[in-house]
């Protein structure tokens, strides 16, 4: 297992957002889901830059939807986590759990 198999923080967050949104995951919903849950302002550029990277790694696949008038006739790009992506999320989760095990983070470091 190489170090590259682990996800970066924002990659991890994006994949979790895609898993939460399931088939409703496209730029707007992903951005809003992250803002709502993490309470930090995220740009659409950051979302797409990370999604493109994840797609290159094979963790995500995308498809274009139908053009809609509310978007000026432009299509939505829907994203979906691949089996490889789910494995990467689980692996990163396990690593984080293992690293935080036994640490009383709230009391010791807050």
């Amino acid at each position, binding site marked *: 297992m190489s170090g590259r198999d682990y996800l970066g923080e924002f990659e991890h967050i994006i994949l979790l957002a895609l898993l939460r949104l399931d088939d409703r995951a*496209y*730029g*707007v919903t992903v*951005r809003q889901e992250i803002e709502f849950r993490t309470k930090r302002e995220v*740009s*659409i*550029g*950051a979302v*797409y*830059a990370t999604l*493109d*990277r994840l*797609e*290159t790694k*094979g963790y*995500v*696949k*995308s*498809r*274009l939807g139908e*053009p*809609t*008038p*509310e*978007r*000026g006739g*432009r*299509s*939505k*790009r829907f994203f979906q986590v*691949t089996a*490889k992506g789910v494995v990467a999320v689980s692996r990163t989760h396990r690593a984080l759990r293992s690293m935080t095990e036994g640490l009383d983070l709230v009391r010791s470091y807050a």
Partner: protein
Amino acid sequence: MMSQEFSVHPPRIATWLIGLFTSDHEAEAIPGDLLEEFSHLASKSGVAIARRWYWRQTGKTITHLAGGAFRSAPWFMAAVVVGGFLLHGFLHALPGKVLSEVTDRYLAFWSSHFQAYMWVLNGMMIAHLMASLLVGCMVALAAKGREMVATVTLALVYCGMGGVALVGAALVWVATDRPMNVAWLLWAGWDPFAIMVGGLIVRTRRAQGRDSLPKPLGMTGV
């Protein structure tokens, strides 16, 4: 509600800027997502807030797209920018060489027609600008899909060099009381602009070609 959403448009310049930096892959999705959120925000919180949000998103998005272009192909982008720099150096030297050849050969003519000589000098400056424009086009053509990132980077390199030259000239002026060649510095300041215009021409042509193609549907990636 819906008619109000559609009557409000996001800032045109911001939309244009986003279009310059998005790759073919994102050309549909990113502007569409921004327009969708802008319309909702404008109807919910007002146009002024929506416009401010749109500009903030534009700035951050362009920064991320430019950074992403460098992260995805760092060596390729570095090679394109360095290649452009070397080509610019080579092409910029040409008008000067030609001019010195001509002035050396017809020295007697120039000395009695000083105005014509000045006209040729101005022509040389225009030739420099045309060379920069050509370099911008070449760099953009080489940078496939990352035209503006490559040309803006090259332009920023020249802006940095111009800034250093300006400070150097000012220091020499203070130290020796020799006047700065302000006209030449001003002309040199147009170089980065000409490079970006070159990139803009190629980018616009490519975008027109892309828009005329049928839009693909279906899964990409894995």
